[in-house]
């Protein structure tokens, strides 16, 4: 029984997260049909074959030029019913989080959402999902057919398992949507709230003077809009950085996936709250700095050499 892997495109170009979806679908065995809603040809859709798609189906309709939640949900639900799939997999991206439940509802089931692992157990699909802000893992058996899943991004590292990827284009008719995307506008620069950022790069007194924070801002920019620059209270009190940037010792609002502490010794203040970060990286010239005891990964040395190099490497990754 095949799995329907829902790919994501924007402006006619396949989003890389789609590779993760196909990879995960592959793991369930039984064949993978990749599907994408688009107004026309999707550049890079053929890549799905590399990761295991037997078939790549493009459902076309002019309405799909921009994300059309109702039309897309309708088209996918019908495709799912038509194909009699055992499972439908989405990425839990911003769009996927919006779309998957709409499709699931039309199929009369819930989504097993934001999963970090999946397996088959006899005939059933068993998934793992982080709950309570990652403080626990929930293992759930999905007794539905089709089972609808969404994947936490950056977990199912794409694995190449080339398959035929036979391409098919199907024009579909969809209802006129009541909800329409007017446009996608750029996020205003520098307004990423430290409290909400996935990546926080925090600077302390080791930066020596306010102007040197530019080095951290360059690194933040390299992450392409997911990163914010934070500062210790000491540095904010000294007037180097704005109050809104402060990452405090109480840490009530901070829980990023990645926390990079630059020039922060960790001797006092600052540390305790950011402990809930998923991964902590420390960069400091003092190898005995207490922060290295807290960090998952540390680099000892001159931050003015290390951080620019890191910026370069991150840019390469995200480019």
């Amino acid at each position, binding site marked *: 029984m095949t799995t329907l892997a829902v790919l994501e495109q924007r402006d006619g170009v396949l989003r890389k997260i789609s590779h993760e979806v196909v990879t995960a679908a592959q793991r369930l065995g039984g064949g993978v049909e990749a599907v994408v809603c688009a107004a026309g040809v999707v550049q890079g859709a053929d890549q799905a074959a590399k990761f295991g798609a037997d078939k790549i189906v493009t459902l076309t309709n002019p309405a799909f030029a921009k994300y059309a939640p109702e039309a897309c949900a309708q088209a996918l639900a019908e495709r799912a019913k038509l194909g009699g799939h055992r499972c439908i997999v989405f990425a839990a991206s911003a769009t996927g989080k919006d779309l998957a439940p709409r499709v699931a509802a039309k199929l009369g089931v819930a989504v097993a959402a934001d999963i970090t692992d999946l397996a088959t157990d006899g005939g059933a699909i068993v998934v793992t999902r982080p709950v309570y802000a990652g403080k626990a893992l929930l293992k759930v058996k999905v007794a539905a057919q089709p089972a609808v899943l969404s994947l936490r991004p950056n977990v199912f590292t794409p694995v190449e398992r080339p398959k035929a990827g036979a391409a098919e284009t199907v024009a579909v008719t969809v209802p006129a949507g009541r909800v329409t995307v007017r446009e996608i506008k750029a996020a205003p620069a520098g307004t990423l709230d430290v409290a909400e950022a996935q990546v926080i790069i925090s600077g302390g007194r080791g930066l020596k003077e306010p102007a040197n924070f530019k080095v951290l801002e360059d690194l933040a920019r390299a992450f392409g809009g997911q990163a914010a620059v934070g500062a210790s209270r000491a540095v904010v009190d000294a007037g180097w950085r704005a109050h809104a940037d*402060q990452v405090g010792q109480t840490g*009530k609002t901070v829980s990023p996936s990645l926390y990079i502490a630059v020039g922060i010794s960790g001797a006092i*203040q600052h*540390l305790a709250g950011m402990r809930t970060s998923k991964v902590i990286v420390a960069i400091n010239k003092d190898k005995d700095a207490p922060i290295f005891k807290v960090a998952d990964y540390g680099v000892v040395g001159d931050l003015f050499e290390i951080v620019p190099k890191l910026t370069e490497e991150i840019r390469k990754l995200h480019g």
Partner: protein
Amino acid sequence: MDKIVPAQYQPPLPLDTLIVQDGAEGSGDRMELDVLIVGAGPAGLACAIELARLAKADRTELNIGVLEKAEALGEHSLSGAVVNPRAFRELFPDLKDSDFPFRAPVAKEAVYLLTAERRWRLPTPPTMHNRGYYIASLCEVVRWLGAKAEALGVNVFTGFPAAQLLVRDAAVAGVRTAPAGLDRDGKPTPGGTAPNDLVAKVTALAEGTRGLLAQAWCQWQRVPSENPQIFALGVKELWETQQPLDRVIHTLGWPIPSDAFGGSFVYPLEPNLVALGLVVGLDYRDAALDVHVLLQRLKQHRLLRALLAGGEMVEWGAKTIPEGGFYSLPERRSGAGVVLLGDAAGFVDVPSLKGIHYAMHSGIYAARAIFQNLKNGAALSAYDRLVDASYIARDLYRTRNMRLAFRDGFYLGGIQAALMTLTGGRFPNGKYRMHADVEVARRLSPGLRPGSAETPVGVSKVDAVFKSGNSTRDTIPSHLIPAKDVPVEVARFYSHVCPAGVYEAIDGGLRINAPNCVDCKATDVLGPRWTPREGGSGPKYKRM
């Protein structure tokens, strides 16, 4: 400088801002109540419950409001604790001991004298027998009492600190709460809330240790006491242990220096859930003494190391305890429109380490006096008479000099205390004069090397504050009032006084990390003055 006297650097109590004429501008909402109780601790809640019951029995309606600065009940409550259940039994005659929010009866107990390497078992002093009492978490006690109070129709407002006393001439009319949402410089922001005025016929101040408004009222009304109130600082940790503990333990001696007073407690709430803490009188002589650091050291002692090995510290907290006893009680604890309850009045017996049942009973007596005052116009001073005629006064009188004797040091004090115990308080007699803690000189050298808190079972102040559940807004304005110029030696002294790392001696001056504050009040006793900040700030104790 070879010594410092903290009093030289402590600003006076800001009476001008603390006492405000009712009707003065500056507040948003105004609410009228029959009785206002400041503080939802055991004293305040017992008072509210007794008042509600009296009203119900009398078929009258009383509008009772309890103000609590913590975001939720119990979050600022901390104690050992071993509780004498008598006040519970009086307040809830229809319930059994097993219905009360206690964890376990005290089964075995032991008292040890410690040195760095060894321990000596001492016979349990008569004042410290705990048979028939219960180990409890004060947080759980408060939440339980709070539920009972609310079920009786009492309005409990959490997240509202009382910041100022509203007065009409010489009478207390109510309180004004602290504003919320001020920016770093103390200016109001659009999302914040203005102070509220709560006025009532009677205001009961049950703010706990070193209560700000209680201090302000006593000073404003010039209510004397024979001795100034003195305090100890207790730093406490809650541990989930691999090894079970089956007894209540108290220790004396190491690591407390012989010219300081104090001891430690280790109480099993469950066999594998252990509360432990170190309590040290704030009249210690060495400017480098750091109670939090001493606690970390204590945990290394053979007696505790095995117990804690492989365990996890789940909570941390700190609070001061009024230790002055009988002679430090204000001459009267009632006045026009006001009564003082619990720790705020000083009803704590140090030799038995008990205060919760006194707090609750003071609340019960106050409720009776308040009820008669509202009903018949009877004087509120009936509250003082009730307390003076009760076991509260009897107990405190019997041990009136015991703590005070220790101003002469551990050994001399120990001998005197033993004599007092043997003679039921009759000898040595007289009254030991005490100085306020802030007036005691501290030597700078030779000093203790405070040492590091980092040990295998040790925790730094920063990590400790995190474990108190403190999530105070980082941009909150500082609520602490230091002297204008603080020399670096005094800054260093403050950094040792404060268990939460609020004070740092940096760049030759004093840096204040106000959001760290857990409202223990040690600062208010020895250093910069403490004032309330927006509701919900400070620790969030769960089972302390």
